[in-house]
C-alpha cells in the first residue's frame, strides 16, 4: 500500500546587507529557520539543501533590502541614469526642471527635455520634436551613462512618444538599457519619473543580485522554481525582475505583514515594532493592503504599489483596529518576512485612466483592464487559469471631464507548474 505523499515544502528567503534569513514551510508550519551573515544567498541555499532533504515546490526571495541598501548607502554601485522628459516645453523654473526628491535627482547624471507629450486622454499636445530628440541622442552617445529613463506626459494612455524616444535612443546607443515609464502605469509625472529613474538606476545592481540567487538556487536546489518578491507582497519571475527591478523595492515590509498574519492565522491588522514609531498595516483576504504611495524608506512617491503602513498610536497595540483583530508582530522580523515570502503568490497591478460614456462602456473598460492585468500576472509567473481578480476599483476622477475614471486592478494567481496549478491548494488562502 503506497504511503501518503508529504506536503510539498515552500522556501522563503529575505536577503539583507548584514544578515540573510530563510525558512522552510511545510503544512503551514515552519520546519526550518536559518540565518547567515551577509547578503550572499549561496550559503543559505546550500544549508537548505543539506538540512532539508525533501522536495521543494518553490523559492521566493526578497531582495528589497539589498536594493534599498544600494540606493541609500552604495550609490556608486548603481547605474548612472540619463533622464529624458517629454513635455510640451521645458520648465522655466529650475525647481520644476528636476525631480522634487533629492534621492531621485542624485541618481541622474544627464537630464534632457524633448518637446512633445499627450494629455490624459491620449490627445497630442505637441508633436514630438525629432530634431531635439536627435540632439539628445547625440549627447547621450557622447557620455558614459548607458541607462536611460524616459517619461512623457500622457504616456499612461498614449505611450507613442515614449516609445519613439526609446527607439531613437536605442538606435543611437545600441548598448543602452532603456526604461520607459508607461511600463508601470500609474498617475503623476513626479511618481512616474521616480519609478522609472529607480528602475534604470537599479538595472546593474539587480542583475548582480539575481545572478547570485540563480547561481545559488541552480547549485543547491536544481530545478526548483525561483521567484522574486515584489513590493506589493506578491512575486514575479526572476527574469521579469531583471527588467523591472523597481518592483522589488518595499517587499520586506509587505512580507513581514503577510508573515505575521500567516502566523496569527488569518486576516488582521498587524502592528510592526519599528523605531522610532510602531506602524500598522492590514492583511485582507490573505493579501497585504497596498497602494501606490510614498515608499517610506526612500521618502519618494512611486507608481508601483507597496504596503500601506501607518504610524500606530502612542501605546503599542492601541489604535483603531476597526472590525479586524489587531496582531502584534512579536516574531523575528526577518523570519516573518521569509514566512510571508514562502506563502506569497504571483501578482499583478494595473492603474490607469479611462473614459466612459455609459455603464455598459464602464463594464467593457473594466473587463478589458481585468483581462490585461490577468495577462500580466500570467507573464509574471502565475499558472494560466489561476489568476483571480482580488481587487478592482473604478472611481470618477474629480474635476475632470465627466466620464473620466481611474481604474485599478489587482490580480493574484498560483505559480506556474505547481501541482494542481495551485500553491494555494497546499496553503489555503488565509481568511478572517
Amino acid at each position: 500500500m503506497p504511503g501518503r505523499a508529504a506536503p510539498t515544502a515552500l522556501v522563503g528567503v529575505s536577503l539583507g546587507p548584514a544578515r540573510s534569513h530563510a525558512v522552510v514551510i511545510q503544512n503551514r508550519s515552519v520546519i526550518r529557520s536559518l540565518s547567515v551573515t551577509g547578503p550572499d544567498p549561496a550559503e543559505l541555499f546550500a544549508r537548505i539543501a543539506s538540512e532539508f532533504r525533501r522536495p521543494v515546490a518553490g523559492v521566493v526571495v526578497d531582495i528589497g533590502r539589498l536594493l534599498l541598501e544600494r540606493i541609500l548607502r552604495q550609490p556608486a554601485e548603481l547605474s548612472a541614469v540619463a533622464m529624458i522628459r517629454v513635455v510640451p516645453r521645458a520648465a522655466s523654473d529650475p525647481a520644476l526642471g528636476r525631480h522634487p526628491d533629492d534621492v531621485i535627482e542624485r541618481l541622474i547624471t544627464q537630464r534632457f527635455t524633448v518637446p512633445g507629450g499627450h494629455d490624459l486622454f491620449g490627445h497630442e499636445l505637441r508633436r514630438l520634436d525629432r530634431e531635439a530628440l536627435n540632439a539628445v541622442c547625440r549627447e547621450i552617445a557622447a557620455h558614459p551613462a548607458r541607462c536611460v529613463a524616459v517619461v512623457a506626459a500622457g504616456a499612461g494612455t498614449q505611450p507613442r512618444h515614449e516609445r519613439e524616444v526609446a527607439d531613437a535612443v536605442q538606435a543611437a546607443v545600441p548598448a543602452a538599457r532603456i526604461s520607459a515609464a508607461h511600463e508601470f502605469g500609474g498617475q503623476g509625472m513626479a511618481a512616474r519619473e521616480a519609478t522609472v529613474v529607480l528602475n534604470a538606476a537599479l538595472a546593474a545592481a539587480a542583475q548582480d543580485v539575481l545572478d547570485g540567487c540563480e547561481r545559488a538556487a541552480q547549485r543547491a536546489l536544481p530545478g526548483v522554481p525561483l521567484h522574486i518578491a515584489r513590493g506589493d507582497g506578491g512575486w514575479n519571475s526572476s527574469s521579469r525582475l531583471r527588467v523591472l527591478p523597481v518592483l522589488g523595492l518595499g517587499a520586506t515590509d509587505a512580507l513581514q505583514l503577510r508573515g505575521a498574519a500567516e502566523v496569527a492565522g488569518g486576516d488582521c491588522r498587524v502592528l510592526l515594532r519599528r523605531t522610532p514609531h510602531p506602524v500598522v498595516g492590514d492583511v485582507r483576504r490573505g493579501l497585504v493592503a497596498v497602494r501606490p504611495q510614498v515608499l517610506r524608506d526612500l521618502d519618494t512617491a512611486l507608481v508601483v504599489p507597496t504596503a500601506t503602513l501607518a504610524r500606530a498610536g502612542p501605546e503599542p497595540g492601541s489604535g483603531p483596529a476597526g472590525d479586524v483583530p489587531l496582531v502584534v508582530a512579536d516574531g523575528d522580523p526577518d523570519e516573518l518576512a521569509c514566512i510571508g515570502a514562502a506563502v506569497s503568490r504571483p501578482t499583478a497591478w494595473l492603474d490607469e485612466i479611462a473614459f466612459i460614456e455609459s455603464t455598459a462602456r464602464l463594464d467593457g473598460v473594466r473587463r478589458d483592464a481585468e483581462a490585461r492585468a490577468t495577462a500580466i500576472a500570467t507573464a509574471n509567473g502565475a499558472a494560466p487559469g489561476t489568476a483571480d481578480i482580488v481587487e478592482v476599483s473604478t472611481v470618477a476622477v474629480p474635476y475632470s471631464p465627466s466620464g473620466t475614471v481611474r481604474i485599478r486592478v489587482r490580480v493574484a494567481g498560483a505559480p506556474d507548474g505547481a501541482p494542481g496549478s495551485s500553491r494555494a491548494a497546499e496553503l489555503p488562502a488565509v481568511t478572517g
Partner: protein
Amino acid sequence: MTSRYVGAVSSVTADDVPALVEGAKFYSPAVGDAGWISMVSWTTELLRRNGPVVLVRPDAVAPQTRAVGLCAIGSGAALADLPPAGDEFALAVREVEHLTRRRAGVVYPLAAATVSALVPLVAAAQLEVPLLDADGMGRTFALIHHTSMHLAGLPIGPLVARGATGESIALSVHAAARADTLLRGGVDSLGGWAALAAYPCTAGQLRTAALPGTVSRLINVGRLLLESGDTEVLIGRLAAVAGCRRIGRGRIVELEHLSRPSDVTIPAHPSSVVIDEVGGHGRLMRLELRSEIVAVFADGALAAAAPDLICLIDVLRGELATLDSLEPGALVDVLVMPADAVWYSAEGLAMVGPASHGIPLDHPRRR
C-alpha cells in the same frame, strides 16, 4: 512642533508650506496627492529663493489697490501628469493686467483649497506682491462663478487661462455662468488644466465680497493635521477648531458610476459610494459624489449635503481618503463640516446646494 497662530497680518514662509498644504487638502478633500508633489516642492523653493510672501487681510491694504484672483482650473490628475513649466500663473496675471490696463498690487486665491491655495502664493512670490488673506469659496466648488465675489455682483472677467503648453485663452463674458462653458473645452485642449486669473477688482471691493481669513485658516488647521497621528485625536481637534463632526465609520462596500442623471457642464460624472457602518447603528451610508462629496444619506435619510464640506478619513492611515483613491474594503470615517455662512443663504444654496446636484431635498441645516 509648536503652533504659531497666523493672525490678521503675517507672512508665509517656506516653513509654512507643509501646513498650508495639509489645510488646503482638508478644505478640498477630493483631490489625490499626485498633483501636489511638484507644486509643493516648487512653492517651497520659490519662497526660500525669493523670501516670505506678505499675507494681508483686504481691509489692511489701500482700498483702491488692484487685485486679481488666481486658481488652477481643471483636473488635478492632469496637473499631476503635466506639471507647470513655471511661468503660467504670473503670466496669466500679467495678461489680465494688460486687458484691464491696471497693475495688480495684490493677488488672492479664487478658492483657498486644494492646489489652488498654493498658486496665488507662487504668483505673489514671483510678482513680488502681497497675498490677500481671503478667497471666494472657502473650499472648492466645481464652477468658477460659484464664488462670494459673484454673489456680491463683481464681474468674473476679463479672465485668462494659461496652459503648461505655453498657450493662453483670454475671455470676456456677459454672464459669469458662461465663463465655465466657454473655458472648459479650451482647458481640455491646454492639457486638462490651466492657470486661471479672474475677478480683477479692488481690495476695497473684496473687503465685503470675499471670505476673509481663509488662507491663514488653512495654515492653522494644517498645523493641527500635521501634529495629529491618531485619528481620534485628529477628529477631536478638528471638531474644536472647524466645527467638524463624524457621521459614522464603516467599510466601503460598493462604488457605483453614473448613478444619477448627468449634467455635463459640471466636471466629474455622478457616482456613489456605499459604506457599511461598523459599530454604531449599523447603518448603510450612501455618499453621492461629483468632484466632491455632495450628499450623505444614512439609511435613506439625508444626513449632510453640499455646501457642507464632507470628507473621508482613512482610518488605517489617519489621513484624508481622496476620492480618486477609494477602494472597496477600506475603513473610513465620514466627516462633515459647515461651509462659510454665505453658502447657506437662499442664493448660496440655489447655486451650490443639494438641488444643484440633482438632489431636490431641503438642506439638513435649513430644516
